[in-house]
């Protein structure tokens, strides 16, 4: 196995609420290689954000708790790590940026204060040196008039600028892993294009691995090498960006791609996945997607499908790809719902 920065193995994060136990992250496994960009895709409530918070050990507890699994970061299991150790890692070796930069910046301090604080926590530098480094960082992320901006407050900046500041802060200690949770969702398209370009540039220049959490398959196509698709707390499909977008295997991934209105094609009616995302609960039997799946058969409602590995390394949590089913159904394994197949 090549150099892995992050490796999740059967991670389980459950929430204990008044209405019962909710398996928000249900045995999730995937890995991120050095300098690689991996995307986690899914709709709201699929557990993608909780997965990222679990890695950072930032799941609000109670009600949340990691009840099983491993999070290997450069060989160290973060689930077992002490709070003190996590404090050293966060911001230093693993950094995170969020969807809404305004809520992650303190409105009472200047951009410079906050950037210098981040630098000085992790490095032994004087205030003066920290300020010089901060200006340098702002320049790197493409902020004009960095010398002036450094003394301004967050509210004086636009959304795109604030996200640049967050990225500057995240990059201040050259982390090995950057977790970006919907980093461009709150931004306009033209600003989003700027931020995506910046993230790509940082990934290439500093060889920083990025775990990108998004619901936008377009953003995935721009940035990711590999993709993990999540549905109802579980990984339903894993593959390279090209495989997922061009030859999706899981009926959910297929449905998701088909329901997007396309800029380049003209279609009469959009495909839509019937029904809505199910409510999560422990001890559910059957495939989580079965009630909405056009291809579902009896077994889908009786057993939980495993992640089946396909020839090329792509994996899908679907009985269509189980050996037994493939033999049983003459076209089982090869059936592709609606995909033209390339």
């Amino acid at each position, binding site marked *: 196995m090549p150099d892995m920065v992050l490796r999740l193995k059967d991670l389980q994060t459950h929430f204990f609420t008044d209405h019962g136990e909710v398996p928000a992250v249900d045995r999730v496994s995937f890995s991120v290689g050095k300098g690689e960009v991996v995307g986690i895709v899914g709709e709201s409530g699929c557990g993608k954000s909780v997965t990222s918070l679990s890695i950072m050990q930032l799941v609000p507890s109670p009600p949340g708790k990691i009840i099983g699994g491993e999070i290997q970061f450069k060989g160290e299991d973060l689930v077992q790590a002490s709070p003190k150790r996590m404090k050293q890692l966060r911001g230093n070796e693993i950094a995170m940026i969020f969807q809404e930069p305004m809520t992650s910046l303190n409105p009472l301090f200047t951009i410079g204060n906050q950037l210098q604080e981040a630098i000085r926590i992790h490095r032994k530098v004087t205030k003066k040196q920290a300020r010089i480094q901060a200006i340098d960082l702002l320049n790197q992320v493409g902020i004009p008039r960095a010398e002036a901006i450094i003394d301004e407050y967050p509210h004086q900046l*636009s959304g795109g*600028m604030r996200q640049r500041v967050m990225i500057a802060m995240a990059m201040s200690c050259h982390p090995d892993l950057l977790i970006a949770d919907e980093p461009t969702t709150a931004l306009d398209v033209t600003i989003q294009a700027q931020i995506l370009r910046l993230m790509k540039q940082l990934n290439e220049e500093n060889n920083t691995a990025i775990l990108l959490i998004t*619901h936008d398959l377009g953003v995935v*196509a721009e940035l990711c090498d590999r993709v993990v698709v999540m549905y109802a707390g579980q990984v339903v499909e894993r593959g390279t960006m090209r495989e997922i977008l061009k030859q999706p295997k899981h009926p959910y991934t297929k449905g998701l791609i088909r329901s997007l209105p396309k800029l380049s094609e003209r279609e009469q009616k959009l495909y839509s996945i019937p029904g*809505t995302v199910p409510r999560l609960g422990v001890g559910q039997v059957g495939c989580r997607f079965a009630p909405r799946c056009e291809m579902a058969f009896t077994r889908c409602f009786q057993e939980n499908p495993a992640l089946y590995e396909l020839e090329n390394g792509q994996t899908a949590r679907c009985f269509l790809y189980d050996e037994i089913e493939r033999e049983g159904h003459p076209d089982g394994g090869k059936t592709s719902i609606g995909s033209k197949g390339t």
Partner: protein
Amino acid sequence: MVAKPLLEVKGLKKYFDVKGGVFGRKVGEVKAVDDVSFTVMEGEILGIVGESGCGKSTTGKSILRLIEPTDGEVTFDGQNIASLKSEQLRKIRRDMQIIFQDPYASLNPRHTVEKIISEPLLIHGMKHAAERKKRVRELLEIVGLNAYHASRYPHQFSGGQRQRIGIARALANHPKLIICDEPVSALDVSVQSQILNLMEELRDAFQLTYIFIAHDLSVVKHISDRVAVMYLGRMAELADKDVLYADPKHPYTKALLSAVPIPDPDEKKEAIILEGDIPSPANPPTGCAFHTRCPVAMSVCKEVRPTFKMVDQDHYVACHLYE
């Protein structure tokens, strides 16, 4: 069918005062909508796209006079909305409805779905409770919900279902025009396509006309017949959707289209990445509002505001390149 105009907007302006100083005097103006004109044909879906702060929502609300426009003429079905008295306005609003982005904020959490949908019926003169009840059930079925949902409260529904309730309420009095202000932006992809399909079906079933306001260019392309692009309170371009997406004229439209990430790794495109931010509408650039970010700006762009005019068959552009 010869289409006739249902709505004509001429020179619509909405300026918001900026107050400041010790005495709260007016210190400036935000030109949220600045001289916008367009026509919507009967049965048509006109899409309005633009980035945040471009005035697309303000345009929608000014048409309904949910906010009072500063200047301009809005003619709906032959009547000038701007000069109507409140009682006349109330009557005409029966024919023009609005659906909002946030289905969480636009439904009263203390009212049942029944009450939410029957309120407009009551206001517009459906006096018998039994009749209203019947209509509410009918509307719920039309938008793909069940009659038994009538007794529930908004929080018991998912985002997509709430948007369906909002649509049912808008449909209650058989409107002619529905202004849809970012109706699917808050929804997940799989739910978004359900709502878009529903809106198209309803348009066909009830001969509705939509003004569809959104920031997502793919969504607008899918649903609209014609598309208008706004930038900083002004119209940049307006054309048939196929023409606009295949042959955009305005440099802003070109950049906007090229910035949309496409979920297909094989689709190579020429990326025009605009530098800088959208200027503040309180202090818009002189001349053409886009000249500060325009890759092909000329000296005239700084001084003279380009007029919005037809450069091709039904293709309107406000740019000096086409003077």
